[in-house]
């Protein structure tokens, strides 16, 4: 077995040292209670070549972004990742190290996390950020739990244009009772109705920006209103590249920002692993969940970094912790920070604009198809169209032509007939003029 270094001789010598005749003696206390060494209905070990072949065959059964015309977003986006990102994250010292509990031999991880925390704070326009969450949806749920702790109120209001799966995660993970959860799966292009919902029982209002349907909002007046009622505004961002062309959530007055960071450095991976970003104001520092890296100095006065404020965390506080999170998304946050370092200010903003340009081009072309309507008054790199046929039928027919044409809204909101003909379409810097023309050609055929 290629991964197990002990030889038969080694094992015998070691058993001798321990003073037992065979390995099962070490399991004898268990064997008294249950049968050990059960027979499994599973194959025996395979060679590297055999395993590779088996998994390659499974992989080959999937259509993917590089062998199709690809236009799907909705919280996971196809972007080009520079080759050096994947190279660096596979360095042994990053890939095969643990959470940096021993700072003297973990400065590599601690320093990049400190840099990551700074980059995330700059992007979101907030004071501080943690060292990552599992993904955008769990970051949003943790943000809601934070808001409940801070305000000591229980009611949570979700904008109805939030990603429906995010709404489900927030409700489940933050443990919100039906009577305290205000989320309407009906579609409204506008979020002004939120002003009427907030009252003295509201812990927080959660708004996604750009929203699930792609629309962008200036949330400044909403933030002011929500805060005037003693509640917090949580802004969710699923496409972090949008922050290159928009006012930052911080500048709009957000109290907590929860983002999905996948777009930088991380492939779509059929949904995970991703990297959640969580930022807030200084005054809520001690209510943040998860790992945080801070600066300090060593006994010689040399600057270095450590995990800090651990008095919030489960391994110290146990049942009084701010969250149960332990492992986060270390390596995904490394990919994120490397990609952002490679881009820099100039590259990040150009990439953001290229995404917007790509979506603008696709919109122009799509709207030339008869009976196709655009629902958005604004968008970044994805938008929602209304079709003369059911969205699901459209998307399936397009897939047969090798075009992954978007997300039928009915897949996520299946109890609202009004939305049956809606499809959310994304276009990024990876989509060429030819890809878009193929989209239009195929759409003309299937509609």
């Amino acid at each position, binding site marked *: 077995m290629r991964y197990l270094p002990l030889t038969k001789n080694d094992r015998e010598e070691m058993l001798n040292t321990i003073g037992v005749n065979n390995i099962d003696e070490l399991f004898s206390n268990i064997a008294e209670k249950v049968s050990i060494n059960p027979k499994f209905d599973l194959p025996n070990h395979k060679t590297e070549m055999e395993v590779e072949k088996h998994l390659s065959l499974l992989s080959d059964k999937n259509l993917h972004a590089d062998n199709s015309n690809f236009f799907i977003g909705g919280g996971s986006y196809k972007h080009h990742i520079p080759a050096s990102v994947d190279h660096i994250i596979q360095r042994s010292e990053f890939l095969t190290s643990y959470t940096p509990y021993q700072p003297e031999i973990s400065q590599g991880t601690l320093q990049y996390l400190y840099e990551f925390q700074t980059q995330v704070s700059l992007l979101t326009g907030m004071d501080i950020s943690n060292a990552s969450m599992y993904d955008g949806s769990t970051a949003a749920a943790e943000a809601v739990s934070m808001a409940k702790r801070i305000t000591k109120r229980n009611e949570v209001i979700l904008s109805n244009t939030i990603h429906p799966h995010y709404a489900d995660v927030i409700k489940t993970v933050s443990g919100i009772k039906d009577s305290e959860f205000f989320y309407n799966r009906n579609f409204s292009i506008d979020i002004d109705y939120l002003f009427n919902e907030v009252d003295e029982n509201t812990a927080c209002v959660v708004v996604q920006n750009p929203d699930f349907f792609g629309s962008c909002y200036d949330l400044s007046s909403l933030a002011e209103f929500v805060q005037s009622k003693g509640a917090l505004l949580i802004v969710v961002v699923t496409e972090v590249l949008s922050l290159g062309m928009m006012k930052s959530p911080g500048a709009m007055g957000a109290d907590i920002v929860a983002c999905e960071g996948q777009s930088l450095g991380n492939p779509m991976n059929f949904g995970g692993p991703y990297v959640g970003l969580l930022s807030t104001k200084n005054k809520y520092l001690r209510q943040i969940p998860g790992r945080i890296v801070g600066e300090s100095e060593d006994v010689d006065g040399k600057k270095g970094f450590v995990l800090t404020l651990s008095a919030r965390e489960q391994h110290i506080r146990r049942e009084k912790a701010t969250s149960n999170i332990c492992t986060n998304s270390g390596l995904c946050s490394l990919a994120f920070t490397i990609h952002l370092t490679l881009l820099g200010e100039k590259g990040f903003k150009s990439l953001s604009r290229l995404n917007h340009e790509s979506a603008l081009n696709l919109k122009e072309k799509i709207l030339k198809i008869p009976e196709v309507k655009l629902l958005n008054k604004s968008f970044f790199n994805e938008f929602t169209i209304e079709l003369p046929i059911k969205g699901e039928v459209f*998307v399936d027919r397009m897939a047969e032509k090798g075009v992954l044409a978007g997300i039928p809204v009915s897949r996520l909101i299946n109890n609202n007939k009004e939305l049956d003909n809606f499809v959310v379409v994304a276009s990024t810097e990876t989509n060429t003029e030819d890809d878009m023309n193929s989209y239009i050609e195929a759409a003309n055929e299937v509609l």
Partner: protein
Amino acid sequence: MKNSNKGLNHDEPILFEIGGMDKSGVDLNEPTFKENFIGECFEDREIGLPGLSEPESIRHYVRLSRKNYSIDAGLYPLGSCTMKHNPRLNEKLARLKGFSEVHPLQPLSTCQGALELIDEISIWLKELTGMKAVTMTPKAGAQGELCGMLAIKKAIEARNECNRTKVLVPDSAHGTNPATAAFLGFDVVTIKSDKNGRLNFDDFKENVDKDFAAAMITNPNTCGLFEDDIIEIANYIHDAGGYLYCDGANFNALVGKVRPGDLGIDAMHINLHKTFSTPHGGGGPGSGPVVFSNILKDFCPAPLLKKDEENYYLVENHNDKDIDKSFGRLCVFHGQMGMFVRALSYMMSHGSDGLRQVSEDAVLNANYIKSSLEDILTPAYEGYCMHEVLFNDDFLSGTGVETIDFAKALIDKGYHPMTIYFPLVVHGALLVEPTETESKNSIDQFIETIRELASKTQDGEDFFKKAPIYTPIRRLDETKAARNPVLRWQKNDVIAAE
């Protein structure tokens, strides 16, 4: 900048001191659109993100990487963390485009291979644990705990017994256990360990009453010991109308050897990043699938993977009838696919026979270390251990050296320390988990080093208090970091936390 490099050990300034606003390591075409469609929130703002060219970036991160210890470079005996070798085949396969470049919301007809892979790993996990159902979505071990306890909560609600709010957790448990239960609104009651390092069954029984909801038990526990009474405990729990949650962080001691399903467990999470070798990555990403017994399987979270005659499909909406008892959803999409690919590759490589060898070698290595050190260190408990061995700090008594000093001295000898001061039930704990992927040579050298250091404690504390001295940085002031938190770089290097 003053040069304070020492040979191969380079100082590396932080990104914000070396990057430039006008620098980039990516060539992009110039956007040409005239009018944007962002609307009222459009802003061309100065963000402040420094960039580096590609050669500068690579050097920055390579220099940083060299300040990290890693399992590839040496034995990493961090107890309860299972730092085993991460096969590179798994990395290669996770990068196949048919896995990495697939979108989670593609039409199901276009991702049948991805769904089939999830089905295959589910079958492996159910078979290896002897449990009836599995949910793959939890993002890490702690989310797996949340998943299991949410299912238990939902099952209690379904029985209309919401008075059951008490969750019993042994004092040796990982902090995530009580944190999870409390997060869900359960009342956590801590159960003491007995003198043999096992859960005190009498104390346990005394705390089971009409409010009893569940117990969260780690098996093998964090003392590296099998809970010998587990079947009796499970029966007692079930007779009292409660549920048994098992923290499966230490499944590496049992895989292929013992089925948790035979022990009366109702739910257990499995850390794919421990037992099944997906890399720890400096603190994630992990993956924490949960296996369930028959009585809990209907409460699984969305999405649910199903198959009709020909095709796989997902039941993924809160109002779908197949999941009307489900407790909800734990994350957007379907869990950590990238980790599933790696873990399945690992399972197939080992096979049924190899996985049994995994737990046997892991247990053998730990007991070999225990036998080789018990005359000079002080094992916390008598008898054989499982995949990890726990020592207390009695062997340091009177030397002035504390557990932390011993650990730091080990760093100077080229090792990552064992887990220290955990579990909390042992004074000055040192928890050593070698895993099965260490050779006998490697373990012998580790034993030799520990023996040398242990003898040295008799010569006074100075050597230990000064350690480490060969690292890029020496002991850091953690109190200062917490008292005056500096959590990000700022232009004038000043940040005041309120």
